[in-house]
């Protein structure tokens, strides 16, 4: 298996229905849990640390180090919270992990809970993923009936539609029954997390890798993937490619391999124009950068982020100003409103980009766009404000001629033929909403 294309997250799914406990057991499921429960808790954390298992949710923080920061002997319970609020545009990997291998996630939860001494696990699943919620619920019921939980409580909690709840402290607020608005840090969740208690928070795909870390051992696990980031990731490839979808590959695979070999290249024989490597929030890469390996450090060195391994491929039919505007509209819509630079800044971005797209902007407006980005970056409690800036500022920097081509009455050089021409953002729908009243007969 090591030779061709190692699978960890999707292992055993070929020709099998791993949503079923018996089938998951047929491929070695819950063996790692049995082994883990015979280990000292600290030995599990040590194994995860030695494996350099880095967070697959976005930040890439090593899971073992996170666990080592948990406050000890506080007299409070220790919580494990799984972030299944996947909402980053371009990302749909956690959805497939839950839908196809729910027991792998549950097993990961139980091993991790043993490692950190937790009796209480919460899995926060985005509200839209109703089917995945039901798959998880059925799997959990089976695991409970088979007496696999060992006294650990796992609660599945559904969100109700808010991108910001994927931010860990906003997620905790939402789980506590508040509006999902981020908290100031410090204190960090390992010290003061859910209900004020020490809390370990990890992404679905991170936790679902834990059984394989225990099964293979840190030494074997570390041989897979990139030296600085061992293991695999499920890469979500979307946009203008011939075969979009989720593909599990080792970290360190190049963007070129992912786009051309795995996803069949740019669709419809078009030219590659731009690659967004980690979900809509990260800086764009240009075609000359696609030999970059997809691991945290390499993508970082190329000026972007690994993010959620969600690769959006853009062909030459798309206007980059329109793309920046659509991204900005999303972040404006999802800004929770707590921090002024993000709340106001996202609106300024949308207004300036609209003006530019409509051919009403001057060079002063472009300078202002740059200035607004500057005044937003790093100025809010969480990264959402930054996430609005990264696409806008990077598209502007890298496709400057196209942005400037819109100036002084010129308008969009695509003259109505851009691939995303006229795309309606939900925020625009809400703007109009106040102008009419909807009546529904009784």
């Amino acid at each position: 298996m090591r030779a061709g294309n190692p699978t960890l997250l999707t292992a055993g799914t070929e020709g099998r229905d791993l949503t079923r406990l018996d089938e998951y057991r047929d491929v070695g499921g819950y063996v790692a849990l049995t082994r883990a429960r015979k280990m000292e808790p600290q030995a599990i954390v040590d194994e995860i640390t030695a494996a350099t298992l880095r967070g697959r949710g976005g930040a890439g923080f090593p899971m073992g180090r996170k666990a080592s920061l948990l406050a000890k002997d506080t007299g409070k319970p220790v919580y494990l919270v799984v972030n299944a609020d996947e909402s980053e545009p371009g990302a749909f990997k956690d959805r497939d992990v839950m839908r196809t291998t729910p027991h792998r996630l549950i097993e990961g939860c139980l091993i991790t809970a043993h490692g950190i001494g937790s009796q209480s696990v919460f899995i926060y699943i985005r509200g839209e993923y109703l089917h995945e919620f039901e798959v998880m619920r059925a799997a959990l019921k089976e695991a409970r009936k088979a007496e696999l939980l060992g006294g650990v409580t796992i609660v599945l909690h559904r969100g109700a539609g808010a991108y910001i709840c994927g931010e860990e402290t906003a997620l905790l607020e939402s789980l506590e029954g508040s509006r999902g608005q981020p908290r100031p840090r410090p204190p960090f969740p390992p010290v003061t997390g859910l209900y004020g208690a020490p809390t370990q928070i990890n992404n679905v795909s991170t936790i679902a890798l834990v059984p394989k870390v225990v099964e293979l051992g840190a030494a074997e696990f570390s041989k897979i993937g990139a030296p600085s980031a061992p293991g695999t990731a499920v890469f979500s490839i979307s946009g203008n490619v011939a075969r979009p979808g989720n593909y599990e590959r080792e970290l360190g695979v190049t963007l070129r391999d992912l786009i051309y070999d795995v996803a069949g290249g740019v669709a419809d024989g078009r030219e590659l124009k731009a690659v967004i490597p980690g979900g809509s929030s990260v800086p764009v890469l240009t075609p000359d950068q696609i030999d970059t390996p997809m691991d945290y450090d390499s993508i970082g060195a190329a000026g972007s982020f690994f993010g959620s391994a969600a690769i959006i491929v853009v062909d030459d039919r798309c206007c980059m100003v329109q793309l920046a505007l659509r991204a900005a509209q999303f972040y404006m819509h999802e800004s929770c409103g707590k921090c002024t630079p993000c709340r106001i800044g996202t609106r300024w971005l949308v207004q300036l980009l609209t003006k530019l797209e409509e051919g009403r902007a001057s060079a002063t407006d472009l300078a202002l766009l740059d200035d607004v980005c500057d005044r937003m970056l790093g100025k809010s409690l969480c990264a959402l404000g930054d996430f609005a800036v990264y696409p806008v500022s990077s598209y502007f920097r890298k496709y400057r001629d196209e942005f400037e081509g819109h100036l002084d009455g010129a308008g969009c050089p695509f003259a109505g033929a851009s691939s995303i021409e006229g795309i309606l953002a939900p925020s625009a729908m809400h703007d109009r909403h106040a102008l009419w009243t909807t009546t529904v007969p009784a």
Partner: protein
Amino acid sequence: MTREREVTAETYAKIQKLRRQYPRSRSAVLPALTLAQEEYGGWLPPEALRAVADALEETPAYCLSIASFYDMLHLEPVGRHMVEVCTNLSCALVGAQAVLDAFADELDVRPGETTQDGEVTLRAIECAGGCGRAPVVVVDHVYHEPLRPEDVPGVVEELRARG
């Protein structure tokens, strides 16, 4: 005229069960509002907020402050069916606007509106997490991926037949 009513005894009992899942009962506010919304025909009128507040020992204002934050909780009437078209980047790049336009034509509404007969609400939504199977359309919480403009009349016909 609409008469004020509590949630059904069954929903009330479900909310009490939800509360016990959490160390603090306020954590149950999202699932409780979701349950109440289902009971009240897909949205949360003031009496639904009062009923949830009562079941959770919170105030109606608190429940409103939560409901107004989340995209899937509705504070205005919606149709018996909900058609949601994702228009975020990945879907936009492969023709989401044509799908949204096809639904608007077929239903004779603008996005954000409900058909005159109160049957179907059409909405544009942010990323639904089906980017590799775009364009994504969610009909009554069920994902249709991919869905092309030519599929739209069939989907609408099926919805109308469902009643």
